[in-house]
């Protein structure tokens, strides 16, 4: 059974200009021990999805189902949800400095997180805090437990956040841009640490990032989001080597390549979540847009080979990949001569 199962999740926020549809019809499954990478650009809804799972979307209208470990989180009361959050679902965000309290030592904050969920004495909790700091690779953990967040570097703070996130051995770790604020060598250390903790604890990891390289490095499966919808999902090899959705193709073509090689950016920018275009939300920017794309929004359907690869696009299901053959199929579909 899947650990996490979102079904037709929709999140909207009321605004003076009308409802902002941050998420529409998002479904996903995540099994224990697996890593799902969620990629997308600003406003695609990836963080909204994470916050919805955690029940942290204040003022939002949420519908659908968030199945976690056999229960529907959306039907839980705030108290029950608080028990799940923190103990069974750990979380790490981009900016550890704003997630940690500046007035308290990190040891105290980790101990407090433990004592909020378990009946342990102050001393035992402190000892566990120090053990956790050691686990995440902080040198001299007993001494460092008495330091304040500002006394740590960015990378070390993110380690502290991870110590807190895994303190209660959660079944799921949600990591929202966990390495975006970090330097490259530190990013590599933190990704390595997340993978090690995952192995040791058997956690599922939901990794949200805008960085395709990070996803490729750690994720088993990839979900690409655009304008509040899942437009493609597949295992990470398929997603990056045999993508179907033109948006995924466009992202890959935007990646800086060798020097002198001209990049092929996606023209324009994502639509306003207040005024979604008719039909497919990507259609105004799409190279392969056809008549039906502006008329009807394509559902997320299985494309070639196995049920694991799905794409929300009207192009033929065999048009996967970045090679000439796939390009010919796409060109034929839209009635254009292949170049």
């Amino acid at each position, binding site marked *: 059974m899947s650990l996490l199962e979102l079904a037709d999740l929709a999140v909207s926020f009321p605004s003076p200009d009308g409802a902002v549809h941050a998420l529409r019809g998002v479904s996903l499954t995540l099994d224990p021990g697996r890593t799902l990478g969620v990629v997308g650009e600003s406003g695609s809804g990836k963080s909204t999805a994470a916050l919805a799972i955690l029940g942290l979307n204040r003022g939002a209208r949420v519908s659908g189902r968030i199945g976690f470990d056999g229960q529907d989180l959306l039907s839980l009361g705030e108290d029950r949800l608080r028990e799940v959050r923190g103990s069974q679902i750990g979380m790490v965000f981009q900016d550890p400095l704003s997630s940690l309290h500046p007035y308290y030592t990190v040891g105290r904050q980790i101990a407090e997180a433990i004592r909020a969920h378990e009946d342990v004495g102050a001393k035992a909790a402190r000892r566990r805090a120090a053990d956790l700091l050691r686990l995440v690779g902080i040198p001299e953990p007993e001494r460092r437990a008495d330091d304040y967040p500002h006394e740590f570097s960015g*990378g070390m703070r993110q380690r502290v956040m991870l110590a807190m996130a895994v303190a209660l051995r959660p079944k799921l770790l949600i990591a929202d841009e966990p390495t975006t604020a970090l330097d490259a060598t530190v990013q590599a250390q933190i990704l390595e640490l997340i993978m090690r903790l995952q192995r040791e604890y058997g956690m599922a990891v939901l990794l949200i990032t805008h960085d395709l390289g990070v996803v490729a490095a750690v994720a088993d499966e990839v979900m690409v989001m655009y304008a509040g919808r899942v437009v493609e999902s597949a295992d990470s090899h398929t997603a990056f080597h045999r993508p179907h959705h033109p948006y995924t193709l466009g992202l890959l073509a935007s990646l800086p390549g060798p020097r002198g090689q001209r990049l092929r950016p996606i023209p324009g920018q994502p639509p306003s979540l207040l005024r979604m275009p008719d039909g497919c939300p990507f259609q105004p920017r799409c190279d392969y847009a056809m008549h039906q794309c502006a008329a009807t929004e394509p559902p997320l359907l299985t494309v070639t080979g196995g049920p694991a690869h799905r794409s929300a696009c009207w192009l033929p299901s065999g048009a996967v990949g970045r090679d000439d053959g796939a390009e010919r199929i796409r060109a034929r579909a839209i009635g254009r001569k292949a170049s």
Partner: protein
Amino acid sequence: MTEPEKSRPVAEPGKSRPVTTPAVPALSSAPAAAEAPLLEVAGVSKSFHVAGRRRLRALDGVDLRLERGETLGLVGESGCGKSTLARVLLLLERPDQGRVRFEGTDPFALRGKELLTWRRRVQMVFQDPFGSLNARLRAEDIIAEPWRTHRDLVPVKERGKRVAELLEMVGLRASDARRYPQEFSGGQRQRLGIARALALGPDVIVCDEPVSALDLSVQAQVLNLLTDLQARLGVSYVFISHDLSVVRHVADRVSVMYLGRIVETGPTEQVFDRPRHPYTAALMSAAPVLDVTPGARRERILLKGEVPSPLDPPSGCRFRTRCWRAQDVCAQEPPPLEPSGEEPLHAAACHFPLQEPVTVS
């Protein structure tokens, strides 16, 4: 919310669109300095006093050379001195030691009007397209503002026309002149920042993380624009970025910094494909790459610990405390930045440089 940006391809050099003259004729045709590099920095050091009487050595004997029309990538992690070096190049920070030459002239020896003339030749594009534009000025005033300091550059009655030219040069519309920054998207604002930098007809633009705040698809648009502008105007870039794939894409040469020193420099392909300094090799291996072939996940060189404090840097080679190749000599002698035999333009500051490319497969 801004209205969606229409796709508007930027004119490619030498194509259909009538060749617009650069908004301001470049000064660089000054005959005197034909042989000297456009910009040369030698042995530059800069310290700051912090926390009472302690000294933070932000730059420690930095050498740098920039030719006309060239892009130099500057790579390194937080606190390595990239931004201080950028400020020296912008003549905003006077070095404690060392030499800065601009076409053979020491710009720091100039005063008054002469200094002003030199200043306009190095301009800057900032990382944050939201924080670096005055929200109370219209696009036309943002672009024209530098001309209030550099009064003689563009006659007042031609300024409107020049603004329109600059807007079109960066892929915006002349009609955007009346809009305010907040009416533009992030990518459009970055174009506006580039137009402002171009307004003074600089020879060098220091780009400090110019695309790191942008989404991938928009980042590619701005990178293409920078490439086009260089081909069209012959401007040189000092391109500071933490994103190695971006640097590899745009830079002709790369300099790698660590704790205030340049540890490696050379043509981009040589530095990326055959790094000689262990720090460079570790940095390259740390960058996530899109190779998801099963089993091909690369071995990373995971560095131990963190960058030491620049207030108390290690003796000798500054990287030695984290280096797996370090020996006694590394603690005693700072290694000089020296070229290798086969690659005369490729230099590394290491006593035990890597000979073979480190296999990271």
